[in-house]
C-alpha cells in the first residue's frame, strides 16, 4: 500500500485535503461517518483501476474547521460543490459512503451534469418513523465501533492513534468529524433528501452492509423507488454501516464494475 498524492484546495477560507492515486478516468469518493483520518485499503482497490480522488468534507479529517462556517444545508451543498470542482471531479463518476453518500446524492440531484455514474453506500438523508436509523451521536464511546462496522476492529484500526501523531490533536480531530456530521444531520439524519431524489438521473448503485446497524436495509428500497434514474441494490455480506471498511475488496469491486 503506497501513499496517495496529497494537495489542498481552499473552500470558504479553509484548506481541504485532496488525496489522489492511480490512473485512468477519475472516480471521486466522499467518506462516511468519522471521515478518513488515514488512507484505507478500500481506496487502494479503487486506485488499481481508476484515478481515485478523495476530497475531505469540511470538518472531517483533512477538512480543518471548515464546518464551522456552514450554517444551512445550502451552505453545505455549495461547499461540497466547490470542493468537487476544485478537485477536478466535475462530470466524473462519484462514490460515497454514509454521510458522504448523502452529499454525493445531493450533487447528482442539484447539478445533474456534474455526476456521470453514482455509487452510494448506505447514505444518510432520509428518516422513516416506522424504521428509524440509529442515533450515532447518543452512543457510549465503547459502543461506536460495533455500531459503525460489523467488525469493531475495522473502526478501531481507522481511528487508532498513528505512531508519531499528536496525542492531543488526534482525538480532537476525531471528535470534530462526529461534530461535522452532527452539524449536517442532527438530530434525525433527515435533510429532506427524499424531495430531491427524483432529480437524480445518473445511474445509481445502492450498496448496503448486510449487518448495517445505523441505516436499516429497508432504506435501500426507499432510495431506489424515489430515484429519477436507473438503480440497482447490492447487499454486502459480512459488512456493517461502513461497508468499505469491513469488506474493502468486495465493495471496491462492486463500485468499479458499476462505473465501468
Amino acid at each position, binding site marked *: 500500500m503506497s501513499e496517495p498524492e496529497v494537495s489542498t484546495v481552499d473552500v470558504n477560507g479553509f484548506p481541504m485535503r485532496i488525496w489522489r492515486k492511480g490512473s485512468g478516468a477519475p472516480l471521486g469518493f466522499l467518506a462516511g461517518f468519522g471521515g478518513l483520518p488515514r488512507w484505507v485499503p478500500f481506496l487502494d482497490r479503487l486506485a488499481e483501476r481508476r484515478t481515485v480522488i478523495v476530497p475531505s468534507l469540511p470538518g472531517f479529517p483533512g477538512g480543518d474547521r471548515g464546518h464551522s462556517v456552514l450554517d444551512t444545508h445550502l451552505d453545505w451543498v455549495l461547499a461540497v460543490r466547490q470542493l468537487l470542482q476544485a478537485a477536478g471531479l466535475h462530470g466524473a463518476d462519484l462514490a460515497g459512503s454514509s454521510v458522504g453518500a448523502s452529499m454525493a446524492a445531493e450533487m447528482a440531484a442539484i447539478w445533474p451534469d456534474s455526476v456521470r455514474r453514482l455509487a452510494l453506500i448506505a447514505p444518510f438523508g432520509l428518516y422513516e418513523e416506522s424504521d428509524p436509523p440509529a442515533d450515532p451521536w447518543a452512543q457510549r464511546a465503547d459502543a461506536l465501533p460495533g455500531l459503525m462496522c460489523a467488525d469493531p476492529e475495522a473502526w478501531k484500526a481507522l481511528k487508532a492513534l498513528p505512531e508519531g501523531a499528536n496525542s492531543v490533536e488526534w*482525538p*480532537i480531530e476525531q471528535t470534530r*468529524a462526529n*461534530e461535522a456530521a452532527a452539524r449536517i444531520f442532527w438530530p434525525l439524519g433527515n435533510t429532506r433528501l427524499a424531495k430531491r431524489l427524483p432529480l437524480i438521473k445518473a445511474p445509481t448503485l445502492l450498496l448496503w452492509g448486510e449487518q448495517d446497524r445505523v441505516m436499516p436495509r429497508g432504506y435501500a428500497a426507499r432510495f431506489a423507488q424515489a430515484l429519477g434514474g436507473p438503480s440497482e441494490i447490492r447487499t454486502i455480506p459480512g459488512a456493517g454501516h461502513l461497508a468499505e471498511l469491513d469488506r474493502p475488496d468486495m465493495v471496491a469491486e462492486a463500485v468499479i464494475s458499476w462505473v465501468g
Partner: protein
Amino acid sequence: MKLMWFHLMPYTELPEDFRQKHPSVWVDIHSSLFDPKRAHLMYNDFMDELEFAADCGFDAICVNEHHSNGYGLMPSPNLIASALARRTTQVPICVMGNSLALYNPPTRVAEEFAMLDVISGGRLIAGFPVGTPMDTCFAYGQNPSQLRERYLEAHDLVIRAWTEKDTFAFNGRYNQQRYVNIWPRPVQQPHPPIWIPGGGSVETWQWCAQMDYVYCYLSYYGYKAGKATMDGFWAEMARLGKDRNPYRAGFAQVVAVAESRQQALDLYTEPAEYFFNRCLHIDPRFAAPAGYSTEATQRAGLESMVKKAANAQSLIMGDKTNRGMTMADFVERGYIVIGSPDEVLEQLNALADDLHVGHLMTLIQFGNMDKALTQYNTKMFAEHVMPRLKTRFAEWEDRWWPKPMAEAERAEIPGFAPKLAAE
C-alpha cells in the same frame, strides 16, 4: 456571604430498583414512572418549601430549568418564579436560569424575565445557562455544533432587547427579527443582575470576567471536589487583572443539619442516597455529543491533569464514580455537608475559605426528602448556622445583587385566603 435556598424539584417517588431497571433519569426516563396526581402534591410541597425558606430569612430562593428529567421537574422555572413573586414580598428570586438557545425567538426570555422583574418589583436574578447536553441537544434537539454560537447570539439579542430604547432590527446569524421591542421592560436598570451557571471551561470564566457576570459552579459533588474548578476560576480572574471579590462566584452545596451528627445521619441518609443513587443516574450515552464541548475545552482536558480532575466531577463521571456508594462515602467526600449546627458551620467556613465564593446556593431539600423534614432542615440552618455565616466576606460589596423598588412604591399583595364558592 449570601445564603440562598435552591430547589431542584426532584420527583420523589422513583422506585427502589430505579438504577437497576432503568437506563437514565434523564432524556428517556419512562412516563409510567410519573403519576400526575402525586406530582400535584409534590409541586405544591416544593413551592411551600421555597416560600418557607423565604420566611426563614434566606437571602434568595432559586429555581432552575431542566427537560425530560426525573430530578428536575421545572421545564419552565419562570412559571414557578411567577407564583413565588406573588407569595413572597422581599426575597430575591434567582432563576438559574433560562437556557437561551432553547427559546425561539430568544426575545421570549427577555420578555418573561422582564415580566418577573416587574411583577416582583425588581427582585429577579437572571441566570443564563448554556444548558446540559441532556436538556439542550437531546431533550430539545438542538444541534451541538451550533449550541454555543446560538447561546451567545441569543444573549446579545436579550441584552439589546432590555437596553435599547427604540424598536430595532436584529440581523443575527441564527435569529432575524425586523421589530424587536419588548413590553414590559425590566424594573432593574439597565437590566437584572446576570449570573452564568457553567462547568469548568476557561472560555466561560473569561466571558464572565469580560461581561462582569457572576460565575456559578453548580456541581452536586460538594466543596472538596469543587476546589479544583474554583481554583482555576480564581487563577483566571487574577490573570485577567480582576479583583478577588467573592461575589463574582456562586457555588451549590447539599447541606443537612440536625441537633447532632448522629441524628443528622439518621434523618438524611435515605434522601441523600435517593439523590445520589437514583436522581443522578444518567446514561453516559447522553453525556458528550460531539461539538458540545469546545475544542479549547477538550484540549485543556487532554493536556492538564488539573482539568482532568475537574472534568471528572461532571455529572456523568460522578455517576460512574458513585456506583455502589453509600452515605458514608458522600459525607467523607464532602458531597454533603452534614452534622450539628457547629459541625455544619465549620464545614461551610472551610468551603468559604477554600472556594472563596460569596453566593452559596444551599440544596437543603434533596432526593425524596418530604416537606416536614425539608422545613426542619431549613429552619435549623436558618436559626443556627446562617446568622454565623452571613458576616463572612462583609468587607466586599456584592455588585451583582438585585436592586428592588423602594418599599413604598410596591404593590400591596393581599393575604392568600381561599374561600369556598358557597360561603
